């Protein structure tokens, strides 16, 4: 149960806190519930804040690409409060449902989409040991959770009672069901190299210089990153794969009949999912929360720095390093989101048959070949170089393993080893 919420450290911290009227302080059960609440609130604020920034960014980038200025006035300079103004406008709008709609499903569908999108954030690690729910199979779980968003969209399109919405939903269903396959296959390529399904461990294993990022592990991982990013763009239905919306043919696709807050739920879910797939790409391919510039190694002496804190197993230096890691991760993921925005405004939309052809005739075979290559790669190296990695000091396939870094104490020990000789090998 503790592993389920992974509020273990926060729970331990809260257990026994003095509460007025209770003799022994906070009981472990209540501490766990409170810790879970804190985790959820933190994630939800991120989940709400990121779309706000990305929608503003989308408007600015679209404006610049089209030789306009984009929003300039709201909030003083750069129109940085534009999204908030949009939000206020959307809340005031009337909550409509068409007469032909299946009203109940129509109203519940946006919640399905947004809940599925938010659930993916639960297993996403933001820094070393900073994860709301630490699971051994978190890559698999996050793929499963993100595949649920499509249900909200299909139900929304079907229950709208409009042919445009129905067409959008059907396209979305066909697209999603086929693009899930290459997405999972592309993620398998680096997973074969690291031998773990735990996102926290995958991130922790890429400490050190840029060359230790998994994208540079072997040529197949390098191609797999670009294939994954293409497929991920399609799976969050961004242009050039935004067939479910396709403004020029389907009015607005699956959300044609929606207005007000329910409409904005779809958009929040879309932008949050963009961040989620980008964050997965960053953690699995691009070094996670490590800068790759050996900054962490330079600051490693700072880790034990702890001026007069009476809380057990808490060091301020560690905390600040984790904050830096989370910022690095969010920055890297935001750069990938920026690329998605850039692609949207510069590439024309594909036709639905082209989308299906791209997936089934190109992306699935490519990802299958990549997977096969990644499995055979150590064998090839073994026969030519007599070792399973290119560089002497690289850990070989499946050899990378860490103790589960859920508890703070364990990770402290791990870092201890790490600091002693500063190479990734020692983490084993």
């Amino acid at each position, binding site marked *: *149960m503790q*592993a389920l919420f992974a509020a273990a450290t926060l729970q331990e911290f809260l257990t026994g806190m003095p509460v007025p009227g209770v003799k022994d302080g906070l009981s472990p059960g209540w501490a766990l519930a409170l810790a879970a609440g804190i985790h959820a609130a933190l994630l939800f604020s991120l989940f709400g804040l990121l779309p706000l920034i990305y929608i503003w960014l989308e408007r600015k980038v679209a404006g610049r690409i089209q030789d306009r200025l984009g929003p300039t006035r709201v909030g003083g300079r750069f129109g940085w409060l534009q999204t908030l103004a949009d939000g206020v406008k959307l809340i005031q709008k009337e909550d409509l449902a068409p007469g032909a709609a*299946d009203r109940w499903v129509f109203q519940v569908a946006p919640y399905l989409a947004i809940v599925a999108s938010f659930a993916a954030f639960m297993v996403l690690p933001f820094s070393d040991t900073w994860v709301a729910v630490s699971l051994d199979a*978190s890559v*698999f779980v996050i793929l499963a959770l993100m*595949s*649920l968003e499509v*249900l909200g969209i*299909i*139900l929304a399109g079907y229950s709208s009672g409009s042919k445009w919405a129905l067409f959008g939903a059907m396209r979305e269903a066909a697209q999603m069901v086929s693009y899930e396959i290459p997405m999972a296959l592309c993620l398998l390529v680096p997973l074969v190299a690291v031998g773990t399904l735990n996102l926290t461990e995958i991130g922790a294993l890429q400490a050190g210089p840029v060359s230790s990022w998994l994208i540079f592990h072997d040529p197949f991982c390098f191609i797999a990153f670009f294939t994954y990013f293409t497929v991920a763009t399609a799976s969050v239905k961004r242009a050039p794969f935004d067939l479910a919306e396709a403004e020029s043919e389907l009015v607005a696709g699956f959300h044609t009949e929606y207005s007000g807050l329910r409409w904005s739920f779809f958009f929040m879910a879309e932008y949050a999912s963009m961040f989620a797939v980008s964050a997965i790409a960053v953690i699995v391919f691009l070094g996670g929360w490590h800068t790759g510039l050996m900054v962490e190694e330079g600051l490693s002496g700072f880790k034990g720095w702890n001026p007069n804190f009476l809380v057990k197993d808490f060091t301020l230096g560690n905390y600040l390093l984790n904050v830096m890691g989370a910022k690095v991760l969010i920055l890297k993921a935001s750069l990938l989101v920026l690329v998605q925005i850039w692609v949207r405004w510069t590439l024309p939309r594909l036709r639905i048959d082209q989308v299906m052809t791209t997936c089934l005739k190109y992306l699935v075979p490519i990802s299958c070949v990549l997977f096969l290559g990644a499995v055979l790669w150590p064998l090839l190296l073994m026969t030519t170089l007599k070792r399973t990695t290119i560089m002497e000091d690289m850990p070989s396939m499946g050899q990378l393993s860490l103790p589960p870094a859920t508890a703070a104490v364990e990770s402290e020990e791990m870092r201890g080893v790490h600091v002693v000789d500063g190479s990734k090998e020692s983490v084993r």
Partner: protein
Amino acid sequence: MTLEALLFYLFAAIACGSALAVVLTDNVVRMAFWLVMSLGAVASLFFLLEADFLGATQLLIYVGGTVVLLVFGVMLTATGPYVQIKTTPAEMFLGAGVGGLLLLVLASTVMGINWENDVAHALGAESEAALAADTTVDQSGTTGRPLGLAFVGVRPDAVGPDGAATRPGYLLPFEIVSVHLLVVLIGAAYLARAKRRVEPATDLLS
């Protein structure tokens, strides 16, 4: 009541209530929604048991796959705007009878087990105790229990004095079920394939 028990009853109630709603609704798409709720709650129960891989599989295959295909199929084949399923009283009687009998079998099996002693024995109390004593092994998320091993043909709980398994695992029935599924798939593909007459190819331009 502990937090685990509270969550268990919550998810169990959602799973059972939504399953009932699936049966009692007429509209196919609403049925699909209730099915999502029911399957999702069962996945949550798996997560509660720390079987996260199983829970994710449940979500990926049943919720993200099967239900999506179901709604997709309804959208492709529907003739009217909202498909309704009308159940005749005979069908309702038959369905309720079969469902009730299955419930009876399951309930009598569950009630017939002495949960205090038999389960500890069935799960291989010795190996469990050994695992629990070995603090170096992190047990959270470990689903390699004797029952699960029995499904792949390994019976650590039924080993004779000479080291050979005295009882077979459940691998053979499992494989038979999967072959059966393959037969069903091939049969469905055969029945559903487009029945075209084979004509000699003619050049339309000539």
